[in-house]
């Protein structure tokens, strides 16, 4: 049987995390030319949001939207006509943990804002408000395989609907006691602008297929630790291959069932 293949093109990337202050700023670290030095990272407010939404947007929403916008800027594209795929293992960890703590009290007074922010698609909703885009968005989850599942979904949409699609993967630490049962490092977010055809802004061609293969690791031990402890960071080997501008094959984690093998060919 011929393995199913999907071909898409990368126009831009976004990256945020401890010691990773943007795609362009992280190229040296991703290429192994500069040492990776983790440093605390707090995603900045989203200027595009109206004041009320800007106040209500917590760390998870700012992280996801900021990184998606960075990738679009890198690609030189406007967000208004862009289809979006948001993927995350655990969504807005702080908001969900807060609601759980409140529900364990006698009064159970859940905050209405926290409740609507707790849905897995909250970043997609805030994205639409920020950009004014009515284009479709998907919000999905596959535990530790969330990045590769999101990439397959975004690539399928780009190819089938013949339109650019932006993928945003994000994950953040839980407070205790959930941190103990689901330790997540970070916050980390990765974003890619994918097109179904080559453009003058194309940086690389990706040929993808679903696969279960031992994952490609990061050479730097600090980045490898990040890869293993944050589901969004499972996509770091793909960003490293894009940063290196060398051809190669990247295997993404299939621990939770949806892995992918990607042939990366720079333009």
């Amino acid at each position, binding site marked *: *049987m011929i393995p*199913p*293949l*999907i071909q898409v093109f990368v126009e831009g990337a976004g990256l945020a995390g401890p010691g990773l202050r943007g795609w362009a700023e992280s190229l040296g670290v991703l290429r192994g030319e500069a040492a990776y030095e983790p440093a605390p990272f707090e995603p900045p407010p989203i200027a595009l949001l109206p004041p009320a*939404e800007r106040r*209500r947007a917590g760390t998870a929403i700012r992280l996801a939207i900021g990184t998606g916008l960075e990738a679009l800027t890198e690609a030189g594209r406007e967000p208004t006509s862009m289809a979006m795929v948001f993927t995350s*293992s*655990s*969504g807005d960890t702080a908001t969900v943990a807060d*609601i*759980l703590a409140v*529900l*364990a009290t006698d009064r*159970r*007074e*859940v905050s*209405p804002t926290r*409740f*609507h922010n*707790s*849905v*897995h*698609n*909250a970043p*997609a*909703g805030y994205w*639409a*408000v920020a*950009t*004014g*885009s*009515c*284009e*479709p*968005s*998907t*919000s*999905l*989850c*596959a*535990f530790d*395989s*969330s990045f590769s*599942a*999101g990439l*397959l*979904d975004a690539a*399928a949409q780009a190819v*089938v609907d013949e339109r650019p699609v932006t993928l945003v993967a994000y994950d953040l630490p839980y407070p*205790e*006691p*959930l941190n*103990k*049962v*689901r330790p997540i490092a970070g916050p980390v977010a990765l974003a890619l602008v994918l097109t179904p055809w080559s453009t003058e802004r194309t940086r690389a061609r990706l040929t993808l297929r*679903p696969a*279960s293969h031992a994952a490609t690791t990061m050479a730097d031990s600090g980045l490898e630790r990040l890869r293993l402890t944050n589901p969004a960071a499972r996509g770091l080997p793909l960003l490293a291959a894009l940063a290196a501008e060398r051809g190669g094959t990247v295997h993404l984690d299939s621990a*939770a*069932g*949806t892995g992918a093998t990607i042939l990366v060919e720079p333009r």
Partner: protein
Amino acid sequence: MRPLALSHMCVASSVGFGLDATLTALRSGQSGLSPRPFETVTLPTWTGEIQALDNIRLQGEHAAFDCRNNRLAEVALGQDGFAEAVRAAIERYGTARVALVVGTSTSGILQTEQAFRARDPATGELPSDFHYEQTHNTGSLAAYLRARLGIEGPAFVISCACASSAKAFGNAARMIAAGLCDAAVVGGSDSLCLTTLYGFHSLALNAPGPCRPFDVARDGISIGEAAGFVLLERPSSRDANVHLLGFGESNDAHHMSSPHPEGAGARLAMERALSSAGIGAEQIDYINMHGTATRVGDIAEDLAVFNLFGDGPARGSTKGHTGHTLGAAGIVEAIISALAIEHGLVPGTPHTETIDPAFHGRYQLAAETGRVDRVLSNSFGFGGSNCSLVFGAP
């Protein structure tokens, strides 16, 4: 899009388990809503609870997945020979060629709510028998079904609030079109929990009695729980009686928990669904509306439907049968749409007595028999996430 066959279906909700029980309830107007308090909840509201879930446990190799949401999925899988049909599809196509795209909003979070109440008073730690990955995580429904059904194709959960399991049809259709799989198990499971009951209470959206969609006196939603699945594949000689003809998605870009006042995003999703199906508005015979019975949500959807369809097709909401099953609403109403087509039935709008005089078009209060060739089904969620599906006879 090229039509895809719904070659097998299964469903479990508060009106009953299986297609026959669901069809009977649709015909008779039966409602699964009741004022019985759920778990330790003390709110004055009705729910569409499935009491049998309290007595079911997932056991053996799947014991770690045991939680209300996965139990509910298991009950649905056991109906109408669905698990066997998936096994046959896997034999036909190969384990890696069947995908799984399912929706949920709250997954097994009830398990975590209970675990928080059982935290160690000294250390604050969660009990040692709490399984985060297999119950709480949004991906747990896909992980459970994958293990249970032996599926090795791409598997993930769509979580777009109340549009989740409607949108799953679109993701699966694209994966089939892209050649990533030959067939997909599509659907979802969403179960009662404190997060949604107290969360909707905080927004003053829970009705004190049973929900009354589009009624002049409507006063909020009744939260229900349900699971359902379909096997989606390219039409063939094995064909079933109903096809997915099109889907449309949009975002409101307006507000996190209030719809656009004129339903602009909803209209865009419906227009895209008709365009995807390659049909005109006049070719729809029945619209299964999102119709949750909130004051503003029903106004916006009534306007959006009227602006696109005029007085045209019969329309209504089946939320009074099942309650609003949130992330499962899309799949439950997809299956209701399929039953309507297969059995020549226009479903009614139970609990609703007097349609709001401000509303437009032909609302179907009681079910009646009649030819139904094409149905449009709406699912809209928090975050302004909209999805419309078009189903039809082949």
